[in-house]
């Protein structure tokens, strides 16, 4: 460590603890998507809680204070920023922060649950929140991450064991923690904060790859786009791994583990039903402390950040690329690179609706158009058809066979298999799409995370198919037995008839005929 950047020991520091290495808990909050929201940070900036260093890298380094509770983390960060004199790394409990001038920006994207040290006071959410507000100067900005305790990631999770960081985790039983987004926004308003933006974080609060603003989520025309945005397979990454990482440990991906159900499917349903904000795994709020110190009556006083510093309406990380969405002055929404955000529904939704209507011509038209077009390899759940009939792929194309199998698998998981003839559904879809009949060849892995619900659907389907197969087998056996019996009876009759004088005379006559015929055919020498 450079002698110019020692760690400032505030007290209550944890001597042998690391949040950043991911060995004692879920690792730091991370992801290039969140980095896009940090562009609004300015001036004297404070970061509290475990943030991946690549997030810290995006903050203005002229006057940056970082507070972590573990000494190894603090030392690693101090070494990383040894050449940046404006960066101060502090270590200890949050209650020791109260000295010094107020901050222009306070960043707590990890939330407030991992600030306390085992050595210090166990601050509640409310106490930690008040502390952060108290160190924010009037007019300063707070960027706060909050986990939703009834978010999809929790609703669908299997019971998980506690981690080393759960020594006194109150979680949803902390009465000082606002329950739900509406109360959270009220709490911020009551503390004198004006909200400038709210984003729903998917698929996890700590490693989101989709951050969707409330206005975007409220646009019903974007159902297909939003569903496609949440149909994310890849975990959050921060880009290339540092060849010589300052911080040890696997911190980039948050593994997507099998849970009670496929999270993508439920996320899609949440979008379709307008409940994505309520069921988001987490929220990120950008707020400004009112310059006049006043509190705001309940009713969400909002604040519009100045032009040029307007945060994105949505940030998506797709195939390692960050895509930001902004409102279009002409109405609608545009990507930062100029492309329009498509309105409409996904091909999958359209196929499902047509199937439920039993409108086979419509299904055939959709599948044929999809598989004969350039988007044949784009998964149907990530392909949007606009009201004008344009097709917009929102994911990279894979093998068309894999896309077909993925659609078939999702239709089966959705409980729609009985709308189709029995057999391999992907092959049936291929035929409906105008392809030659035959077994599908190619990579069949659709890369999906499946849960207990899908296993149950599979089990029920297989059990039904087994019952039907057994019934069919019994029918075959019964039919076979009947025909065997018939055959035996006929053979007995044949055998009986074989020894009668009539039969013998007949055989002699036949023999004579054969001899005569061969004599006639024999060529004359």
């Amino acid at each position: 460590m450079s002698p110019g950047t020692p760690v400032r020991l505030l007290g209550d520091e944890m001597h042998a603890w690391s949040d950043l290495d991911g060995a004692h808990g879920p690792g730091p909050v991370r992801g290039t998507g969140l980095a896009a929201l940090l562009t609004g940070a300015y001036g004297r900036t404070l970061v509290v809680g475990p943030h991946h260093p690549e997030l810290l890298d995006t903050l203005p380094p002229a006057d940056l204070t970082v507070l972590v509770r573990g000494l190894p983390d603090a030392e690693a960060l101090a070494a990383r920023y040894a050449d940046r004199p404006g960066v101060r790394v502090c270590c200890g409990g949050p209650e020791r922060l109260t000295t010094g001038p107020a901050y222009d920006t306070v960043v707590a994207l990890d939330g407030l649950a991992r600030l306390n040290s085992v050595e210090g006071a166990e601050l509640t959410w409310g106490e930690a929140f008040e502390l952060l507000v108290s160190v924010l100067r009037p007019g300063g900005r707070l960027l706060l991450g909050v986990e939703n305790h009834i978010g999809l990631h929790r609703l669908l999770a299997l019971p998980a064991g506690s981690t080393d960081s759960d020594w006194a985790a109150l979680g949803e039983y902390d009465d000082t923690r606002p329950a739900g987004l509406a109360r959270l926004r009220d709490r911020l308003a009551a503390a004198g904060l004006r909200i400038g933006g709210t984003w729903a974080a998917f698929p996890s609060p700590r490693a989101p790859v989709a951050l969707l603003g409330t206005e975007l989520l409220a646009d019903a025309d974007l159902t297909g786009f939003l569903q496609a945005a949440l149909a994310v397979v890849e975990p959050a990454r921060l880009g290339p791994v540092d060849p010589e990482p300052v911080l040890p440990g696997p911190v980039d991906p948050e593994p997507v583990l099998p849970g009670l159900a496929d999270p993508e499917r439920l996320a899609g349903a949440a979008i379709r039903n307008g409940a994505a904000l309520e069921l988001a795994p987490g929220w990120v709020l950008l707020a400004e402390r009112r310059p006049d110190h006043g509190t705001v009556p309940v009713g969400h006083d909002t604040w519009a950040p100045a032009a040029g510093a307007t945060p994105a309406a949505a940030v998506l990380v797709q195939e390692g690329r960050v895509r930001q969405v902004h409102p279009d002055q002409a109405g609608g929404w545009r990507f930062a690179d100029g492309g329009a955000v498509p309105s409409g529904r996904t091909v999958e939704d359209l196929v499902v609706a047509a199937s439920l209507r039993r409108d086979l011509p419509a299904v055939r038209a959709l599948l044929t158009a999809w598989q004969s077009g350039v988007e044949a390899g784009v998964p149907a759940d990530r392909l949007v058809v606009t009201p004008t009939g344009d097709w917009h792929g929102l994911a990279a194309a894979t093998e068309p066979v894999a896309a077909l199998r993925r659609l078939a698998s999702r239709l089966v998981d959705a409980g729609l298999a009985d709308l189709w003839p029995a057999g391999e559904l992907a092959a049936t879809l291929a035929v409906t799409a105008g392809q030659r009949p035959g077994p599908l060849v190619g990579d069949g892995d659709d890369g999906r995370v499946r849960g207990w619900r899908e296993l149950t659907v599979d089990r029920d389907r297989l059990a039904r198919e087994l019952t039907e197969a057994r019934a069919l087998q019994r029918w075959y056996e019964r039919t076979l037995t009947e025909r065997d019996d018939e055959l035996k009876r006929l053979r007995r009759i044949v055998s009986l008839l074989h020894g009668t004088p009539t039969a013998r005379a007949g055989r002699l006559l036949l023999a004579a005929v054969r001899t005569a015929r061969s004599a006639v055919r024999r060529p004359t020498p």
Partner: protein
Amino acid sequence: MHHANHYYGHSHVLARYCGLDDRDPPRIHGYLQHGWNIGDGMAPDHEFVPGVPLFLWSERTRRRAWSLGRRQTYVVGAPWAYLLAMEPDGPQRREGTIWYPFHGWEGQRVVGDHGRLIDEIRSVEAGPVTVCLYWQEYRSTRVRQHYERAGFRVVCHGYRGGRWRDLDPGFLHRQLAELRGHRRVASNRLCSAIYYGILAGCEPAVYGDPMQLAGEAPVWGGQPRIRRQWAQLHGPRIDRDVARELAVTELGADRLLPPVELRRLLRWPEPGADAAGPANGAARDGAAFEQATPPVAAGERPGMGVAR
């Protein structure tokens, strides 16, 4: 379960508190913390068997132990706090300072200048000084005479006990009697004895050369961390209210369990459940205490009363 559970007569104190025969305390089904430390509460050389619970003194130690990967961690409070709860403080006269020079444990050797330490003690302490040595140092005539020649009274509370052998149920009782005879308690390192003294009503002090164990490697941050984290407890004069608050926290005196809960946690029998059960006076004391004990607010019990 582990021989360290019987150090200093800890299991005997808890047996008495629980109304059981303290001449032969039952087996504690778990590991009982036997000294104040800044790690997970257990000794560094402690061997762990998975699934065996840890009985720790304080909530802070429990949190720390959990963060270090320990599970089944339960706060019971220090046996010292239970002893004080059972032994009400009398109106005896307190005088002078009892001084605990930092000591090594079995097989360890302290490297330091006793002469310089004696000079520091003399410069700070106005009244008579009693020096309490660990049994190893006490057996060393050279070390003992060093302090005796300085005019200090030299005592030893006894042998803490070996592997289930030579147990000394009277250890803490002797220590309590000595502490209550002194106005101040001091040491060159913050240690269990300082916290014990604070809880027993002494004014604390931590000063002087902290000395070193031969080959000592700082564990969990060592002395620098202790001096930083518990800075308020260092110096020749310490705020008594702050000290008492910290001692109550570190010894878990605010977390003492009622006997029935403690018996349940340690998997001890109910009094009288055994045919050869308690018949001595100590057991009857414990049973009587059981009826009077509140589960918390130990600092307000008669036994925890502190002469200030």
